[in-house]
C-alpha cells in the first residue's frame, strides 16, 4: 500500500468501531482459551445478535490476570469480569444495557495489579482483536514502519534503537542497537532477521502472549529491523507447543501480505521484506542462537562455538540478526515515540519495561508489564498480591533453569539486568516463580537440574555428563545418604560445567544449584549424613 | 621395620600374582617390611594396626564392604592396588544389570548341573560394584591391570621409605 492509504484504512476502521455502542473483549489467549473462552465468546456473540448488533464482541489478547480467567473486558477495560462462564452472557449483556456491571463477576481495575503496570509492549492486549490487522492499524499500527521507511535512513533507525538503550529481552541483555549496528556493517548481498519465539523456560509465557495478542507488533518490528540492517527475509522460529501463536502469526502474515505491508516495495519504497514461520519441535536448547539457526536449517539443534557470531555468519552462513519476541515488540514504540521517551522509562542502564510471568505460590497469577527498576517487593506484594493461604514468601526464581533464586532479604532489589546478576540470578526471559515457606530449595534445584539434563543437546561433555552427575548428586543429597564430600563434588562440578560448557544452556545449568547454595546452604547441609557446619567460603 | 598387609576383594588375584612377580626383589622388600596379613600367608585375623595395606579388587558384596571398612580402621596407609580396586574394572561390568539378572545368568542359565542360586554361606552382592576409594578413604591409588611388578616395587620402596610417590609413574589404567 501507499503511505496515505494507511491513514485512510485506520480512519475507516475507527469509524466502523465508533458505530458500536459497546465493545466486549473476550480473552482468547491460551490460558483463557483452555477454560472455554471461545464458547463464552460465541455465547456473547449470540446475545449481541439477539439485540441487533449494537455491540461488538471480539476476541482480544491476554489481559494479564490469567489466574482469574476466563476474563472479559467491556469498553476498553472500563469494566473487567473474571471467571466468566457461558451462562453469564445474558447477564453481562443485560448489565451493559442497564449500565450496571454484574457485581459478582467484576474484578476491580483500580488495584495495584493494574495501576502499577506500564504497558508498552502489551498496550494493545485486551483492546484489539489479534486476528484483525484492521484493529491493529486503527491503533496506529504500521505507522512506525512507514515512518522508518519514508522518513529515516537505516542508520537513523539504528541510532534511535541504540540511544533508546533497549537491551535484548531474551535474557542476556545485550544492547539491541549494537547488535543491529554490527549486522548492518556486514557486507553481504543476503542477510536475515530471525525472531526467536522459542520460549522454553518452564513458567515463562510472555512471548507466547505477545505472539497471541499482538502478532503484527512483532512483524512490524522485524520489518523495521530488516530495513535497518539491510535484510529482505525474516523468519519467526516458534515452538510447536504454541499452536495458537502459530495460527495467529500465520494469519497476521497473510493479512500483512494482502495489504502489501510485507512483500515487495513496501509503502512504495524499494524496500522488500518477507517473513516465514519455522516451527520448533520441543528442544529448549534451540533458544540458543546457533542452535536455533541449525534448527531452521533442518538440523539437530546443537549449538556451535562462537565466534563466529551469527551477526557475521549465521543462517546459511549469512549475516543474521536474532532478537527475541519481546525485543522486536519494543521497536515500534521506540520509532514512533522516540528514544528519549523510551529511555525515560526504567533505569539508566536498563531502559523501558519488562514483561514478567508470575506463577507459583502467588495470589495474582498472570502476566505483568512493569518499568525496569521496580522493586521485587512491589512485584510480589503490590502487583502479585502477596502469598496466598497464609504462607510466607521464601524465594522467587527468575530466569528459569538458567537463573537463580532471590530470597526474602533481597525483596527491595531493583529489577534490572545488573542488580539481578549481582544477586546470582539473571533477568532471564521473564519467568518469576514464587515459592513459599513450604518449598525445599534442594528439591527446586533438583527440579531445574532434571530440566537441564534432559534438555542438554549432548554435544559437549561438561553439559551432557555433568548435568546428569549433578542431578544424581542432588538426588543423593535429597535421599539423605550424601556426605559433605558429595556436596563438595557437586560444587566442583558446578564450577567446571559453568566455565567449560559450549553454550549458554550448559554454562547456566549450575545456576539454580549455586544460587540455592548461596542463600539456603543450611538446607543442603541438614540433609547430609555427616551434617556439620561447613566453613563459609 | 614396618608391618604390611595385602587384602583380596573382588578381583582375579592378578595383582597378587604381580606382587609375586617381583621375584627376588621380594626379599629386598621383606628386609624392611613384615607381611602380617595376606591371602599369601596363613594369618586368620587382621591385626590391630598395620602400617601399610595393599588392597586388590573391587567392593562387590556385603562381605567386601565389611572387610574394607575393618581394614581401613586398622591401617595407617591404605593403597588401592590395580584397576579393580581403583575403578571397579572387570568385576564392575556387572553393575549395568540388576543383581538378580546376574545371579540368574551365573547360576541358572549357565549351570550345567543343579541350576539355582546358592542360598547359604555366599555373601549377597551389593547393587553396584564400587571402587575402594568410594567406600573408604584411600591414601594412594595404583591403577593397572595388573600394575607391573616394577610399578609395585617402586611404590613399596617409596612408601616404606616414607617418601612421596610420583603419580606420573603409575597413572595408566589397563
Amino acid at each position, binding site marked *: 500500500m501507499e503511505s496515505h492509504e494507511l491513514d485512510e484504512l485506520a480512519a475507516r476502521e475507527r469509524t466502523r468501531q465508533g458505530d458500536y455502542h459497546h465493545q466486549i473483549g473476550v480473552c482468547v489467549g491460551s490460558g483463557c482459551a483452555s477454560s472455554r473462552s471461545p464458547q463464552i465468546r460465541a455465547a456473547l456473540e449470540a446475545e449481541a445478535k439477539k439485540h441487533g448488533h449494537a455491540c461488538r464482541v471480539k476476541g482480544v489478547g491476554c489481559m494479564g490476570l490469567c489466574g482469574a480467567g476466563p476474563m472479559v473486558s467491556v469498553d476498553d477495560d472500563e469494566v473487567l469480569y473474571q471467571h466468566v462462564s457461558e451462562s453469564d452472557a445474558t447477564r453481562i449483556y443485560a448489565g451493559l444495557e442497564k449500565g450496571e456491571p454484574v457485581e459478582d463477576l467484576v474484578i476491580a481495575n483500580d488495584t495495584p495489579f493494574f495501576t502499577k503496570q506500564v504497558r508498552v509492549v502489551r498496550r494493545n492486549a485486551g483492546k484489539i482483536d489479534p486476528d484483525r490487522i484492521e484493529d491493529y492499524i486503527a491503533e496506529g499500527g504500521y505507522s512506525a514502519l512507514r515512518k522508518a521507511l519514508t522518513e529515516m535512513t537505516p542508520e537513523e533507525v539504528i541510532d534511535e534503537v541504540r540511544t533508546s538503550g533497549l537491551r535484548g529481552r531474551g535474557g542476556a541483555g545485550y544492547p539491541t542497537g549494537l547488535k543491529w549496528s554490527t549486522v548492518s556493517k556486514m557486507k553481504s548481498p543476503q542477510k536475515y532477521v530471525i525472531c526467536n519465539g522459542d520460549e522454553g523456560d518452564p513458567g515463562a509465557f510472555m512471548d507466547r502472549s505477545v505472539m497471541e495478542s499482538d502478532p503484527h507488533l512483532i512483524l512490524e518490528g522485524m520489518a523495521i529491523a530488516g530495513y535497518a540492517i539491510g535484510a529482505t527475509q525474516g523468519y519467526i522460529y516458534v515452538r510447536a507447543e504454541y499452536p495458537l501463536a502459530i495460527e495467529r502469526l500465520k494469519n497476521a502474515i497473510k493479512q500483512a501480505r494482502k495489504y502489501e505491508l510485507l512483500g515487495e516495495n513496501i509503502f512504495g519504497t524499494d524496500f522488500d521484506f518477507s517473513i516465514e514461520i519455522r516451527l520448533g519441535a520441543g*528442544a529448549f536448547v534451540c533458544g540458543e542462537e546457533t542452535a536455533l539457526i541449525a534448527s531452521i536449517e533442518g538440523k*539437530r539443534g546443537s549449538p*556451535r*562455538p562462537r*565466534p563466529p557470531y551469527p551477526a557475521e555468519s549465521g543462517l546459511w552462513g549469512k549475516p543474521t540478526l536474532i532478537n527475541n519476541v519481546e525485543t522486536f515488540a519494543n521497536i515500534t514504540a521506540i520509532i514512533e515515540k522516540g528514544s528519549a521517551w523510551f529511555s525515560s522509562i526504567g533505569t539508566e542502564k536498563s531502559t523501558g519495561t519488562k514483561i514478567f510471568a508470575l506463577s507459583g505460590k502467588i495470589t495474582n497469577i498472570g502476566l505483568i508489564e512493569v518499568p525496569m527498576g521496580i522493586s521485587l517487593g512491589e512485584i510480589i506484594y503490590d502487583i502479585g498480591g502477596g502469598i496466598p493461604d497464609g504462607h510466607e514468601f521464601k524465594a522467587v526464581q527468575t530466569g528459569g533453569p538458567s537463573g537463580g533464586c532471590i530470597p526474602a532479604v533481597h525483596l527491595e532489589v531493583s529489577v534490572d539486568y545488573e542488580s539481578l546478576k549481582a544477586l546470582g540470578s539473571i533477568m532471564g526471559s521473564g519467568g518469576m516463580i514464587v515459592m513459599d515457606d513450604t518449598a525445599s530449595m534442594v528439591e527446586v534445584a533438583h527440579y531445574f537440574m532434571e530440566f537441564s*539434563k*534432559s*534438555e*542438554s*543437546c*549432548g*554435544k*559437549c*561433555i*561438561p553439559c*551432557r*555428563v*555433568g*548435568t*546428569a*552427575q549433578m542431578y*544424581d548428586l542432588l538426588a543423593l543429597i535429597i535421599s539423605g545418604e550424601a556426605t559433605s*564430600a558429595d556436596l563438595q*563434588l557437586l560444587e*566442583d*562440578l558446578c564450577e*567446571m560445567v559453568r*566455565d*567449560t*560448557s*559450549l553454550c549458554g544452556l550448559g*554454562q547456566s545449568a549450575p545456576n539454580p544449584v549455586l544460587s540455592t547454595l548461596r542463600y539456603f546452604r543450611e538446607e543442603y547441609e541438614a540433609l547430609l549424613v555427616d551434617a556439620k557446619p561447613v566453613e563459609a567460603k | 621395620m614396618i608391618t604390611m598387609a595385602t587384602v583380596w576383594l573382588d578381583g582375579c588375584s592378578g595383582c597378587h600374582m604381580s606382587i609375586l612377580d617381583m621375584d627376588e626383589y621380594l626379599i629386598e622388600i621383606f628386609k624392611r617390611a613384615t607381611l602380617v596379613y595376606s591371602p599369601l600367608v596363613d594369618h586368620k585375623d587382621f591385626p590391630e594396626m598395620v602400617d601399610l595395606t595393599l588392597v586388590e579388587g573391587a567392593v562387590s558384596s556385603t562381605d567386601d564392604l565389611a572387610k574394607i571398612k575393618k581394614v581401613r580402621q586398622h591401617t595407617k596407609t591404605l593403597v*588401592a592396588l590395580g*584397576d579393580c580396586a*581403583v*575403578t*571397579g*574394572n*572387570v568385576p*564392575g*561390568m556387572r*553393575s*549395568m*544389570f540388576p543383581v538378580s539378572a546376574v545371579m540368574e545368568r551365573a547360576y541358572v542359565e549357565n549351570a550345567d548341573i543343579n541350576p539355582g542360586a546358592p542360598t547359604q554361606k555366599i555373601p549377597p552382592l551389593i547393587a*553396584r560394584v564400587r*571402587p575402594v*576409594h*568410594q567406600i573408604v578413604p*584411600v591414601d594412594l*591409588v595404583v*591403577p593397572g*591391570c595388573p600394575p607391573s611388578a616394577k610399578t609395585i616395587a617402586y611404590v613399596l620402596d617409596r612408601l616404606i621409605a616414607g617418601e612421596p610417590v610420583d*603419580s*606420573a609413574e*603409575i*597413572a*595408566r*589404567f*589397563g
Partner: protein
Amino acid sequence: MSVKTLKMDGKDLSAREGDTILQVAEENNIYIPTLCHLDGLADVGACRLCVVEIKGRRGFQPACSTVIEEGMEVVTNSETLQKYRRLILELLFVEGNHVCAVCVSNRHCDLQDLAVKVGMNYTRLAYRAPVRDMDLSHERFGFDGNRCVLCTRCVRVCDEIEGAHTWDVRGRGIEASVITDLDQPWGESLTCTSCGKCVQVCPTGALFQKGKSAAEMVKQATFVTYLKSMRESKK
C-alpha cells in the same frame, strides 16, 4: 598471508593469520589435550578438553576452534584448567563402560593416554554403568557402544571425507549415541562403503576391526589430512 604476534603461556610467538590457538600451540611444542579434534576434520569444539584462558575474554575458549588475534594472550595450562580437564576426563570415564584391561585398544587409546597426561588416575564420580549396545553385524568391523565417547569423529570422517554420511547421532543429552542409517544394524547399511575410515579415526576401542583381541587394535588416522589435501588440490 599476514603474520600475527601473540603471547602463549608467557612466550612471545608469531603465527599465520587464520591459524587456531591449537595449531600455534602444536607448532611451538605447547601441549594442549584434545579428543574430538582430528587434523583434517572440521572442528566442533565439543570435548572441551582443549579449553584455554584468553586474557580479556569471559570464560574459557576451545583452542581447536578459536582463531588467533593480534596481541592475544593465551594461558594453556593454569591450575584451574588442570582441575577442569581432569574432571572432564572423569566424566567421560564414568559415562560409558571403559574397561581398559579387556579393550581391543588398550595401550593404543586416546582416552587412556589423556588420562595419563592429565593425571586422571581415579574418580570421585559414580560410575553410570549404562546399558549400551554392541553391533557386530558388519562383516569386517565391530562397534561397542560401551566405549564410545561421542566425539563424532566417525560421523565427520564419514560425511566429510568418505561422503557417505552413514553415521550420525541419535537422541540427545546423556541418552545420545551414534547410529548407522536409520539406527539399523551396521552390516545391513546400504550407504556404508566398508571403507573403515571411521574405525581408524575412532579415539577409543568403540570401533574396531574384527579379529583383534585385547590391546591389538592399533589405529592410523593420518590418511585424513592426506585425503583432504589431495582432494583440495584436485579442485
